[in-house]
């Protein structure tokens, strides 16, 4: 079953990347799947619709659950980052307060590797932020603010 869910997610990612104008080859490379599989997905073949439905439901979960579920299913940090970033349905605005002490805990915690330190201040790349809020929960000085941005994108 986990494999089916992953396939469902990769199907959604394939569709999304196609929308963004990726070639089939580029999609295959990005998602680390065969080109024939990409072709099958794009032609709506070889996948149970139930898997896609489950995958769609997962992408609609609150971001932390979505991320943790994918991370558990894949057990591969790089693949998780890629898939979550493509399939996430929301975008986030991030802000670091001056009270940030640059301890780097958020950098270490961020599964999406969206945070780096610059001059003792955390910096979040909002393109990669998945809104899981793990960093805001653990930040010792409560210096991170992550806000959801209204987004009309649909799968």
């Amino acid at each position: 079953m986990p494999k089916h869910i992953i396939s469902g997610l990769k199907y959604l990612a394939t569709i999304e990347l196609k929308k963004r104008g990726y070639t089939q080859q580029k999609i295959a490379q990005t998602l680390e799947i065969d080109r024939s599989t990409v072709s099958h997905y794009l032609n709506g073949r070889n996948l149970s619709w139930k898997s896609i439905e489950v995958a769609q439901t997962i992408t609609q979960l609150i971001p932390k659950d979505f991320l943790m579920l994918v991370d558990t299913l894949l057990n591969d940090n790089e693949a998780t980052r890629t898939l979550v970033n493509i399939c996430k349905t929301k975008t986030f605005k991030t802000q670091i307060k001056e009270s940030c002490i640059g301890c780097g805990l958020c950098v270490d915690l961020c599964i999406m590797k969206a945070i780096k330190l610059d001059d003792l201040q955390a910096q979040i790349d909002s393109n990669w932020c998945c809104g899981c809020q793990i960093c805001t929960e653990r930040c010792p000085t409560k210096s991170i603010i992550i806000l959801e941005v209204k987004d009309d994108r649909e799968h």
Partner: protein
Amino acid sequence: MIANIKQVEDKDFNIKRSAEDERKLSYKDHVCIGCGICAKTCPVEAIELGNIAAIVRTDANISKININEEKCVLCGMCSVGCPVDALDLTIDNVSVSELEMYPKYTSSATIDDETCIYCKACEVACPREAITVSRDLPDRSKLVSGEIEIDDETCVYCGICEELCPAEAIYVTKDPENPEIVVDTDACVYCLVCKRACPMDAIMAACRSCSYGEYDIDPADAVTTGNTFIDDELCVRCGWCEGVCPVDAAKVQKPFEGELLVDEEKCSTCGACIDICPCDVLSFPESTGFGQTSAKIARDQEYCISCGACANICPVEAIEVKRTAINYTPTKSKSWTDKLESLKS
């Protein structure tokens, strides 16, 4: 799951977090002066100062501070705040004191070997025994010169010269068969005592440095050479070396400026402050005579580093350490600047 790992070794410990980078905070108890600045700077209240008075006065095998590794976020504020580097945060094995983005006290202690005359005054005065002066003295034989000759015909080998010689440079063998007198010219300082005391006038000696002045002594032969070493780990930049140096070769910049105030009313003369002071600033005053009263605690303000250890340890809150300036390299981070500025009182 990201979690800190703590390793304890005797009174020292380190706390480590390995993920993107490896952050490691190391604590060395023998360097710690028990001032408690780390506990004040910690943004997550993970540091607790031990019962310093008991630890200092009993040599108890307890660390002066304790850090709760579950609370610690390895930000390094304690490491930067520690005026003596007892705490050091490294990121991928590089100390934050070497990383430009972190602020750093501009404190230092140096001895200029060019100017130093190797008198060892600093070595003796240093309250932390952090200074080692090693020196090579000039060759004594090059600093004294002269001529000495004993007339074997006249000498009766009485041994008066041997007994008088302050340099123990004359050896007399009183063997009736084969008497002998030998002068060790390397040891002889040409003081002429032997010549003056000889009852037979058998000794001819001339002290050249007297008769010809200093002309035949090469000034280079008279120089004491050496080198000085300050153990940065133990040095607290208190300024004793600078204060006692007769040739201004030692230069010290302290991390803080401030003053130390003792409330004579409250002071119970327990002496805890004297025991903890890392700079030998505090002492019980010498008696000035019968019926004379002086201050309860004498203080050498000049050598105070305003660390506040005495104020912390005082059981009756009779001491106040006012820090008026913190000397550090600037940082772009407001939170770090605010934290360092908050050490002022």
